[in-house]
């Protein structure tokens, strides 16, 4: 589109403004190509192009237009972008225009101008507040099958793409002395004074152009325009190294201890984010906060006050002065204060036809405007125009042509953040609005319009006062700087809320289609309380959270109740101030970033071998190592088991928790945390240990080696490494602080490999330096600090989880990769095989070792056949409560083994045991199968599990039933030690 065409299409452009006319931006609205300029919002560009109708209302599908110029926008919600970038319910008023922007209107079936759902408007008498609650009660069965699906299908604004959001989001942390919320006159002044005083300042504003109302008004400061004065301050702020200026950043919540949430829109104003975070959610830690969040204008309720073209008067000034757009060519003003007159004045100064100023106050006009009819003590009764305003009619019957009606019902300070710690605003009659109460979040001070100081000079004075207090609190000296001289005006309001003589429905909350009639109905039905009013009528809900509607609705309720507004009450606000995307809360924690993985030092080596990995907590462990020709995981696992039992296998067991325990009282400490005794363990020996919880239930197990007189190293299960360490630290620091014992995790310090099988000794003998590994010299359960491969420090433990002759060798992690490669090379002559967690699991079931499947939080030492390990010669955690009668019955479950009677049948973990022929009911349940596997050693399926009096039932045949899979297998009760029950191999 040529520049000429572009300018022709923007028929509502006027002179001036803060837009960059040299930077034309092309965008689409409902597939129509339009243009605007850099510095425009989508809303200002639409208005410039004469697009008044931008959407349909939520409930009645009424035609709606832009009403505001900020975050309070209730109507102009659009679907932005397309495809997987689609974002519904975006406020056009705060959407920065970029080249290539694509927007669509929402909530209509058919074209925007001919929405078939507008039939709802004709049904309005039946759809008032509480309609759903009263209507859809019968017949009862219809709710789920008919009413709810139909209502759900009709409800909701906009639509999601259903595709994954391709943008990235991030989070971050900012620390400062002073957080200034809002970049209007009060905010800029506060930030500058604090910055000049040397405080670390963060100035955040939701707009892309800092300056607030200075950019929207025609005020002067020291004979400079407001916008120019703002630019001067911003330039100085940006030059200060201790000040961080953050445009496009909404401080959305005030949390405990001076923590604030802020959403920075980093690339929302660009067509594509190019891999950079689209939005960043900041956690701001501050010592003091200056809330300078300004105020929001509200409307007056009168008949048909929702037609496109009816706008807030302050917004009209914003479009006119900042964006160089007139929202109409024939503008009328309806006001209850002087601010509406300022709108008329600004329009006249831009040569826009102002047809009338209708002022509800029965006083003299504040000033005369040439060619403008002033109607004092008058009210607007109704409007007309199907898809946009054409005419307004007063209660007197007089009417005026108008394609835009600027309405000002007064300004409500943006007190939202003052309420986030349960602060309650208080009513101020002078400005007819709520102002911040005394109970502010700790460290927060409020300045400017947010504090109810609505004139420019008052706002600056309050900013000066507040920043001086802040600097004094921080021990800094306030710079001596005189406030600028301002051109000023007062709001001078006489509260007026709604036109009782309205013809047609008078809208209170545009976004939720709440009318004065709905408020009246809520009152009639007893929903007087503000919170009830909100929930019954939906007043103040959805994206705008009633920023323009709450006070209006409350005031109307107060009128119906015959009470004052303070007596009627107010809702307080919770975070967020404006909507925050869920994606921003997630930040980069998506996909693999959601849960980081831990890798062992042999990970790359295992990857090279094509290992299949499994998540074990945060660890990735090799599950099995497939070889060419193996088409099923069982083939790989069976091979690994058989080869290990026949010769030698190696498994990475680095993930087991390792806790280094030192101190003169280390042995005593272990005696207290373990059920069995460790103080008597000889140096150079390892012992299996069982740890109980306070209630006597098994908590974890593992081995602990004594490396020196006062030095032990404990291993825990992989899953419980952290919880066991935490438990032991609690014991050390809180239960027995007088013991001389010190703990530190050494899990990541050591790479550890199990070397198992009859040839494990021969293999290791090639690796270790000058140590005799014969059974006589290094017996089962021996340990030593040694060196390997010519001097690398190592630890060697002769322990076995597989039931074979086995060792675990540990080297510092940096040597882990090299170690596994050396072990494999050294084992070539023995046909060594690496094995993964599946083979590990198979071998431990064949050996009958309890593991995570067996230690399930209800397991006692007796259940797993280790009751005698709970030493009664000493006290230990869980010792006393393990003696409870209920935990020591002869009929308790015992860990036993199971084999299928028909060896071709597969067992299923989780199966329950019932006596053969008995009904499969809870009363007949005698235990369950906790672990099963196919035993390549035995050639059939095996299992271990818990069975009532299991120790006395060897040889008995039961049914192992699985109601989940509707299967039943006859099993024989056997010893859980399927392989080498006498332990000859591991001691050999």
């Amino acid at each position, binding site marked *: 589109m040529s520049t000429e065409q572009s300018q022709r299409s923007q028929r509502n452009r006027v002179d001036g403004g803060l837009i960059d006319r040299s930077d034309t931006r092309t965008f689409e609205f409902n597939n129509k190509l339009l243009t605007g300029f850099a510095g425009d919002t989508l809303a200002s560009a639409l208005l410039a192009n004469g697009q008044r109708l931008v959407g349909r209302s939520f409930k009645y599908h009424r035609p709606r237009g832009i009403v505001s110029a900020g975050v309070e926008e209730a109507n102009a919600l659009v679907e932005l972008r397309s495809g997987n970038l689609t974002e519904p319910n975006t406020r056009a008023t705060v959407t920065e225009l970029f080249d290539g922007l694509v927007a669509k209107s929402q909530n209509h079936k058919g074209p925007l101008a001919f929405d078939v759902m507008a039939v709802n408007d004709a049904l309005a008498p039946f759809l008032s507040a509480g309609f759903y609650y009263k209507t859809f009660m019968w017949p009862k069965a219809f709710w789920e099958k008919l009413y709810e699906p139909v209502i759900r299908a009709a409800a909701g604004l906009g639509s999601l793409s259903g595709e994954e959001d391709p943008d990235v989001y991030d989070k971050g942390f900012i620390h400062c002395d002073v957080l200034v919320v809002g970049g209007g006159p009060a905010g800029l002044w506060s930030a500058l004074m604090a910055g000049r005083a040397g405080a670390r300042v963060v100035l955040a504003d939701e707009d892309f152009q800092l300056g607030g109302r200075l950019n929207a008004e025609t005020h002067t400061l020291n004979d400079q325009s407001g916008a120019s004065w703002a630019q001067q301050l911003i330039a100085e702020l940006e030059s200060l190294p201790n000040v961080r200026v953050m445009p496009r950043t909404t401080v959305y919540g005030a949390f405990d201890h001076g923590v604030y949430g802020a959403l920075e829109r980093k690339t929302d104003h660009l067509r594509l984010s190019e891999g950079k975070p689209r939005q960043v959610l900041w956690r701001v830690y501050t010592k003091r906060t200056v809330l300078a969040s300004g105020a929001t204008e509200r409307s007056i309720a009168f008949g048909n006050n929702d037609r496109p073209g009816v706008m807030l008067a302050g917004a009209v000034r914003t479009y006119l002065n900042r964006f160089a757009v007139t929202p109409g060519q024939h503008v009328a003003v309806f006001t209850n204060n002087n601010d509406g007159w300022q709108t008329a004045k600004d329009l006249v100064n831009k040569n826009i036809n102002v047809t009338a100023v209708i002022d509800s106050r029965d006083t003299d006009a504040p000033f005369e405007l040439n060619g403008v009819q002033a109607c004092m003590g008058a009210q607007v009764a109704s409007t007309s125009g199907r898809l946009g305003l054409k005419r307004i009619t007063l209660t007197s019957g007089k009417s005026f042509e108008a394609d835009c009606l600027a309405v000002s019902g007064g300004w409500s300070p943006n007190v939202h953040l003052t309420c986030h710690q349960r602060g309650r605003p208080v009513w101020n009659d002078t400005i007819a609005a709520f102002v911040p109460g005394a109970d502010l979040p700790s460290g927060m001070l409020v300045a400017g319009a947010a504090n109810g100081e609505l004139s420019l000079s008052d706002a600056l004075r309050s900013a000066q006062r507040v920043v001086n207090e802040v600097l004094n609190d921080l021990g800094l000296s306030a710079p001596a700087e005189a406030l600028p001289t301002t051109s000023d005006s007062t709001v001078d309001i006489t509260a007026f809320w709604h036109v009782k003589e309205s013809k047609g429905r008078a809208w209170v909350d545009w976004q939720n289609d709440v009318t004065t009639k709905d408020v009246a109905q809520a009152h009639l039905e007893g929903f007087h309380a503000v919170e009830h009013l909100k929930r019954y009528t939906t007043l103040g809900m959805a994206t705008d959270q009633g920023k323009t509607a709450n006070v209006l609705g409350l005031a109307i309720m107060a009128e119906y109740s015959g009470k004052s507004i303070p007596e009627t009450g107010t809702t307080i606000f919770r975070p967020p101030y404006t909507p925050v995307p869920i994606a921003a809360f997630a930040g980069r924690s998506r996909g693999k970033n959601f849960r980081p993985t831990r890798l062992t030092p042999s990970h790359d080596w295992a990857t090279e071998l094509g290992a299949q990995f499994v998540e074990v907590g945060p660890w990735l462990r090799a599950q099995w190592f497939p070889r060419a020709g193996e088409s099923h995981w069982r083939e790989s696992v069976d091979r690994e088991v058989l080869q290990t039992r026949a010769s030698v296998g190696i498994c990475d067991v680095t993930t087991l928790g390792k806790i280094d325990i030192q101190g003169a009282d280390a042995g005593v400490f272990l005696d207290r945390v373990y059920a069995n005794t460790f103080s008597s363990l000889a140096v150079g020996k390892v012992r299996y240990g069982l740890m109980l919880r306070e209630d006597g239930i098994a908590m974890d197990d593992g081995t602990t080696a004594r490396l020196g007189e006062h030095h032990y190293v404990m291993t825990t299960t992989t899953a419980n490494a952290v919880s066991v360490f935490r438990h032991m630290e609690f014991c050390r620091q809180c239960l027995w602080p007088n013991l001389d014992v010190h703990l530190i995790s050494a899990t990541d310090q050591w790479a550890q490999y199990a070397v198992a099988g009859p040839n494990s000794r021969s293999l290791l003998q090639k*690796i270790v330096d000058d140590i005799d590994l014969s059974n006589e010299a290094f017996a089962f359960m021996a340990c030593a600090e040694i060196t390997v491969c010519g001097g690398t420090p190592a630890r060697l433990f002769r322990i076995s989880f597989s039931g074979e002759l086995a060792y675990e060798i540990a080297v510092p992690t940096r040597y882990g990769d090299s170690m596994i490669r*050396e072990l494999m090379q050294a084992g070539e002559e023995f046909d060594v095989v690496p094995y993964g967690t599946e083979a590990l699991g198979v071998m431990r079931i064949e050996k009958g070792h309890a593991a995570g499947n067996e230690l399930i939080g209800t397991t006692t030492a007796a259940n797993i056949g280790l009751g005698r390990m709970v030493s009664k010669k000493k006290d230990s955690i869980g010792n006393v409560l393990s003696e409870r009668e209920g935990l020591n019955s002869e009929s308790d479950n015992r860990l036993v083994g199971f084999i299928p009677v028909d060896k071709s049948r597969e067992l299923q973990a989780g199966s329950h045991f019932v006596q053969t022929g008995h009904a499969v009911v809870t009363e007949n349940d005698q235990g369950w199968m906790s672990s099963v596997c196919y035993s390549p050693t035995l050639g059939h399926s095996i299992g271990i599990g818990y069975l009532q009096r299991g120790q006395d039932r060897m040889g008995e045949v039961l049914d192992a039933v699985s109601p989940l899979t509707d299967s039943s297998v006859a099993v024989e009760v056997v010893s859980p030690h399927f392989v080498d029950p006498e332990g000859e191999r591991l001691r050999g």
Partner: protein
Amino acid sequence: MVNNRLSPRPALGGYELTHAGIQVKERVDTEVFSLACRESEKASVNDGLQSSLGVVWPEVGSCSVSTDSSVRVLGLQRDQVFVVLNSSQVTDGLLNALTNVAWCTQQSDSWATLEISGPNQYQVLECTCPIDLSPSVFTEHHVARTSMEHLSSIIYRNNDSFVLMTPTSSARGFLHMIEESIQFVD
């Protein structure tokens, strides 16, 4: 006995990166020892540290740095500190000295160490590190144990750069987090 000696391999393979005004380098030349003692023994431990390494037992959150900056003691908890020094300084004599003053545990392989520097380092770190790293607040004599994107880390300042220590097993994830932060820098 096999003839091959084992080759050490740094947790991040000796990683180095320069991008967008940021330098990141894995430090492969440092050793870390944990020292622990009881409160009642601190005075004598302090003497031992002073005489053997020229450092003292720091308060939690503080560092003690030797005059030539070659040894740094990180105050991580009331009864436990980390001694960080150059690999070339580790001798049997030094190990004996450490072992003699307190309960000593080798921790060098538990931690991967990254050094990050450059004018944009703050932009990278503020994405993930909750600590206030402003030079006026977090000086060379400070240390913090914290969590960055759910990963445990220790951070301290070394002249104009920051040293980040993170558990070896999750170091690749930690590095990914740093790399992603660098990509996000404006």
